[in-house]
């Protein structure tokens, strides 16, 4: 039943490192994370890896398995042949800390730049009324477990370090879309989406959607609709003229500005 698998695991830190070969026992029903744990327990106690829930719900064990961005806990060993060499590396878009652990602070910094949910000032807790069909779109995006595999895969930052300052990646464009579709939000984030989060960098090559372990249609349901909404405001003169004559005006406000 069990067999010895050939694993190549990247070991090292931000000063250097390389792929190291291991032969490690694999039993039926296991996933890549189990094998990494077995390496820890039997061969390399200091092998650094992040993990929490082991059930694809927390988004901690993001890495690249045979070059593909994956959650290690959701990558079953049965998808590989017994003689296949399985290469495990850290995510290649973020600075490495040690072994399979990367510094994902880029994502937290970008999260902090998205103007937060702003309900109507006079709406009391308990008085919120929203229709199910109005919350469903944003609910899909709220399935996100923040594994950051989408941001890791997006070539706009993966292949271009310098774009990290001006582009927030699919995760946070989706967050903006989520708030833009929230039925009780009062802020218009479209300008911010262009100027601070760089939605124009996205060339919709859909790798974010491909790697999403939650199967969120990031590109089709979040980023493209947001691009269209941005176009409504920014690139569509007819739409601007038409909106002058509209009964229900878009009365959303700009995000609050710093006082100091």
């Amino acid at each position, binding site marked *: 039943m069990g067999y010895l698998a050939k694993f190549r695991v990247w070991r090292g*830190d931000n000063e250097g490192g390389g792929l190291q070969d291991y032969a490690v026992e694999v*039993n039926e*029903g*296991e*996933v890549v994370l*189990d094998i990494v744990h077995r390496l*820890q*327990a039997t061969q390399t*106690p*200091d*092998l*650094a*890896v*992040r*993990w*929490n*829930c*082991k*059930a*694809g*719900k*927390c*988004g*901690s064990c993001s890495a690249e398995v045979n070059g593909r961005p994956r959650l290690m*806990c*959701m990558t*079953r060993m049965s998808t590989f042949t017994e003689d296949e060499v399985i290469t495990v590396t850290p995510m290649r878009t973020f600075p490495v*800390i*040690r*072994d399979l*652990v990367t*510094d*994902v602070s880029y994502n*937290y910094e970008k999260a*902090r730049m998205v*103007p*937060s*949910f702003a*309900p109507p000032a006079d*709406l009391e*807790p*308990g008085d*919120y*009324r*929203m*229709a*199910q069909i109005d*919350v469903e779109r944003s*609910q899909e995006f*709220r*399935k*996100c*477990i*923040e594994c950051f595999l989408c941001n890791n895969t997006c070539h706009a930052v993966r292949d271009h370090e310098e774009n990290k300052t001006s582009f927030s990646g699919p995760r946070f464009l989706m967050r903006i879309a989520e708030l833009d579709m*929230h039925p009780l939000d009062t802020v218009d984030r479209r300008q911010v989406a262009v100027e601070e989060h760089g939605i124009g960098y996205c060339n919709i090559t859909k790798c974010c959607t491909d790697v999403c372990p939650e199967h969120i249609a990031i590109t089709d349901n979040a980023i493209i609709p947001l691009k269209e909404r941005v176009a409504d405001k920014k690139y569509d003169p007819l739409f601007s003229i038409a909106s002058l004559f509209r009964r229900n005006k878009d009365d959303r406000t700009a995000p*609050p*500005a*710093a*006082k*100091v």
Partner: protein
Amino acid sequence: MSEIERHTYDVVVIGAGGAGLRAAIEARSNGKRTAIVCKSLFGKAHTVMAEGGIAAAMGNVNPHDNWQVHFRDTMRGGKFLNSWRMAELHAKEAPQRVWELETYGALFDRTPEGKISQRNFGGHEYPRLAHVGDRTGLELIRTLQQKIVSLQQEDFRNTGDYESYIKVFAECTITRLLTDDSGAIAGAFGYFRETGDFVTFEAPAVVLATGGIGKSFKVTSNSWEYTGDGHALAMRAGGTTLNMEFIQFHPTGMVWPPSVKGILVTESVRGDGGVLTNSEGTRFMFNYIPDVFKDKYATTPEEADRWYADPDNNRRPPELLPRDEVARAINSEVKAGRGTPNGGVYLDVSKRLPADVIRKKLPSMWHQFKELADVDITAQAMEVGPTCHYVMGGVEVDPDSGSAKVPGLFAAGEVSGGMHGSNRLGGNSLSDLLVFGRRAGLGASEYVDAMGDRRPKVTESMLVDAEAEALVPFTTDGGENPYSIHAELQQTMNDLVGIIRTESEMVDALEKLAAFRERVTRVSVVGGRAFNPGWHLALDLKNIIMVSECVAKSALERQESRGGHTRDDFPTLDPNWRKVNVVCRIDGDSVAIKQQPIIAMRPDLLGLFDVEELKKYLTAPELPNAELPNAELPNADLGKGDL
């Protein structure tokens, strides 16, 4: 001693799950500079695993629901051992805490009128659980995380610094609470997982929100973080824990494949028609209906099958007995050699419902089994078995402020004890986090306000001690591997202090735990201090062992069966044991326990129950308008177990 990074805060919150984040929000809202310290990345806390929902008597689906009904349900669920004051506050305040989440941006599923939808759950009289599909915990954690971010943005607009009031110290483990000569909290000491560098927080108030102790057991639904850190930190600082013998084993966790052993299979599978069978194909639950439930549960498969379509004229299938009953039944079947090859029983929903209905009603279960086990539950049976899920016991706190027995120390969430008594109802945990997280944050703020400028000081010698303690595993050469000690300990607890307990096994377990305690002083780790999981486990092991000893000793002490504590040698509930909590405190290297009387319930709360019902739980003198007892009462030899 090396140079140690130092920070000064008003309040330090340890743990960034639901309770910790809610406490931090409250402390910051009261103008306190607050640090959030968490072992994992921000937003990864175990709260994300909660599926069912948040229990709050909002009455959106059934207008008859109110806090009194919720209070009654909670007390019944906990078999009246709950801190009634906590249960009262919880039932009263949960709706406000849920509504508040909406102001932070949470998007719950809705009723047709646009209110928050509420679902039925075991033990709750009315539909009460606010939910988002089966990912309510994720919604809760993300909402609170985003609220913290929005407060940071507000602080940025006012001060130019996002972190002027709240800063998150992610992947940072606290190894010790620092107390001054008077015993009051002066701060906390820990290390950053990434670098291995030490850090000191100077703060007069610390809120513990570290969650549970699941990693003491082999089969658990809990993540690696659940090593009982908060319990151990509190006890080492002079605090106490109570009710540690009460551990909830969820009857249906996955047993195969090994990678997901323990991961939950939601109760709804049984609610929607899932049937439990043993390796002989027998639907065994019919053999395990306790006498008290005889009139409420079907005795034949035919009647049970009819219940799904016609619940008014048939009795419920025995698969829907309370969690503890089902867990014990599965345990017995496996012990009797009628288990599956992987040590569980079969749970099959495929024969009852068409494939597309299963996929619609149980989407996440379908995915979970498809993606993790390659089992198609629309065609195949699941293999399930009991899994350690939740610890009812925890740090002894004041119900109103969350303050522990150490000045300046507060606790909320799973790490605190009392609220759930001997058994927790599904859905009451997320509301617990919010209600008592807020109260602990408020309690800490008020404590800091009252203290003025007379803050306890962190001294160099405290740090020297703490650093030396944390580095011990590096100074031992050729010692034991922490992973193997941990694996042995988990096996011991699972086998000897698991679902069914007997005196001899627990005595055996305590001897083994003493040996582990001794062995753990000799573990050694290889490699450096930067992100070294071996070292991290070596340090966590001390906490795991300490809480395991509390569990075993408390369980040995309590000579009855109640909720999450089942004694083979004392199989029934004994009202005399309801009058006491078993309290655990540190005693030299080990821990010691004592019995502590429970304060009698306020008469107005007692009045919410029928006297007939109270008779099941209370001794005759405790009953309202009780006459003097003349019947002979069961004698539990109270007091014998004192220190």
